């Protein structure tokens, strides 16, 4: 049985799930399922409105993902593809136990820390970010390491790096075992030098 909204539109008796609408918009549905959604959308204003909301979320997420402003662990393929498609990727790979001098330029798009590490004995890995005194200010818990057991690639916020004054960050990769506690897998220092003007007051 159908009901109507106050503006006269008919309420959909069988609305398409938001997840299905997103897969539809991303082109990830099998052809048969896509056809069913097509037919439904042709005759359903309510689901059409919900599709517009889905598109708005998808496009905002796309812009956010491409902005380079998120701190997130990514795959090697992701970084390669970004470089191949014309994005300026600045990558630093300090050796385990060592450090690297680094900076960012105004036209850089992505900033990536490449951390070489042996993950073969670690079930769960955390990435801890510390200040120059070694005090942790951010922990990325249970990071995805999957099949790339020799490296962890962490995209840093390029927006933050461009604004940040000269400083030192220490990254620690830690194996976490519920019974045995934590074990340091590798420590890496990033000595950042500001080369472009930052916002006033952040020195």
């Amino acid at each position, binding site marked *: 049985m159908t009901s109507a909204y106050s503006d006269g539109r008919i309420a959909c008796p069988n609305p398409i799930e938001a997840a299905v609408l997103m897969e539809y918009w991303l082109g990830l549905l099998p052809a048969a399922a896509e056809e069913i959604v097509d037919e439904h959308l042709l005759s359903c204003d309510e689901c059409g409105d919900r599709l517009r909301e889905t598109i708005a979320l998808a496009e905002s997420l796309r812009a956010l*993902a491409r902005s380079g402003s998120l701190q997130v662990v990514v795959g*090697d*393929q992701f970084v390669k593809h970004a470089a191949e498609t014309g994005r300026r990727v600045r990558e630093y790979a300090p050796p385990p136990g060592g450090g690297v001098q680094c900076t960012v330029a105004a036209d850089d798009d992505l900033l990536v820390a490449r951390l070489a590490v042996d993950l073969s004995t670690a079930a769960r890995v955390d990435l801890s970010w510390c200040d120059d005194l070694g005090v942790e200010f951010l922990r990325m818990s249970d990071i995805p390491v999957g099949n790339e057991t020799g490296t962890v690639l962490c995209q840093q916020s390029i927006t933050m790096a461009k604004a940040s004054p000269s400083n030192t960050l220490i990254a620690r990769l830690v194996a976490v075992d519920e019974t045995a506690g934590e074990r340091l897998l590798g420590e890496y220092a990033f000595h950042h030098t500001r080369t472009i003007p930052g916002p006033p007051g952040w020195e």
Partner: protein
Amino acid sequence: MQHVLLKVLEALRTARLRESDKLAHFVLGTCRMTVLDLRRTSRRQEQLLTTFGGDLVPDPPPGPRLDDRQLARCVQTLNERERSVVVMTFYDQQTAGETARFLGISEANVRVIRHRALEQLRYCMGAKR
């Protein structure tokens, strides 16, 4: 070609072509007229588009706008796997297969993580449960 054949068949059926030895001339003539007609039409379309094209492109309907800063905050609340899946999916629409290979999990699991993350983001952005 299809257009010419239809014209010829129509002419034969309606007995407009009385002399059968003129069939080849009729076919060639129809071909020539069809090509000229197509060229004229295409030129006319180009002229019309040049003159009025700007007015013909409809404005996109106003879509819902999201608060980008709030969305960024919501994405930061996802767990690490969810955030990686979301970024890899939306950055350049990596398939579930590519993301699954990186994460070392099945494609079905990637879809589950993506669904869960998007649901959380929708609620974080104010959608009703």
